[in-house]
């Protein structure tokens, strides 16, 4: 009984940690989307220079910030939060793969990331993204564990 209560309290603290991670990912995605929309032409210019994305620059210039904002909504609502974390982790992994491609094939080009993230080098950006992928998976683990703990505890 005592161990069970302790477990839930511990999970409650972990839950706060997961909520903080969730808020941090919302901050990152909302900032990235707002920066791209604020400097739409600047973002479009960078996409136009990318050998990989140039054919899709027209669509990506608005679709990417739109996708980021959609994920922000998923992360904001408690009912879709877990799905939002999976999608944001997938998007960050996709970004990391793209960044790796750029490091290998076009390291001299500027980054299309918005705001202050532009000041990061390609390599720094890969580590930055992977750090957030790690955080997303940590939050997924905590939310899933919390769900299990609550469903296993007696009413």
């Amino acid at each position, binding site marked *: 009984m005592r161990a069970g209560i302790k477990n839930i309290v511990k999970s409650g603290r972990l839950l706060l940690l997961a*909520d*903080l991670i*969730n*808020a*941090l990912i*919302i*901050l*990152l*995605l*909302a*900032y990235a989307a*707002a*920066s791209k929309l*604020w*400097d739409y*032409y*600047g973002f*479009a*210019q960078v*996409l*136009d*220079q990318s*050998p990989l994305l*140039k054919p899709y*620059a*027209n669509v990506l*210039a608005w679709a990417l910030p739109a996708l980021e904002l959609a994920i*922000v909504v998923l*992360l*904001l609502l*408690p009912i879709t939060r877990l799905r939002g974390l999976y999608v944001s982790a997938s998007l960050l992994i996709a970004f990391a793969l793209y960044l790796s491609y750029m490091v290998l094939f076009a390291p*001299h*080009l500027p980054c299309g990331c*918005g*705001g*202050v993230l532009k000041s990061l080098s390609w390599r720094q950006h890969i580590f930055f993204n992977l750090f957030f992928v790690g955080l997303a998976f940590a939050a997924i683990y905590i939310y899933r564990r919390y769900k299990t703990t609550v469903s296993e505890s007696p009413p």
Partner: protein
Amino acid sequence: MKNYFLGLAAIIIAIGAAAYTSPEVKVKPQSYTFYFTGNPLLDTDVADESKWSITPTENECEEEDNKACQIVVDDNQTFVDVNDGNKRKLLSTLGIIAVAGADGSGNGYVPKMPHTGISSSKGRP
């Protein structure tokens, strides 16, 4: 409400930070003249940003707006292509629209954009 507090706070901070760190809008952006290199009888050519070049063509442009010839765009609607000798090009996201020339005969197209960027255009007679 407690469930939304952290997320909403993050969104407000993000928008504020993006507004603070976004580049300032230039009061008077530099403008560039681009010259049409395609076939002015084809609307697809006129609407194609890659058919406009910063290098002047041999054709002389006249005031009559019958066929695509040259356009003036702002700096932020162009980019420097590092893969093509640092040549300045039109953004492929500009969305140029080809409209029938001024004589209305349907024998030529001139560029028009929904954005405010093209400050002037001159056509071929």
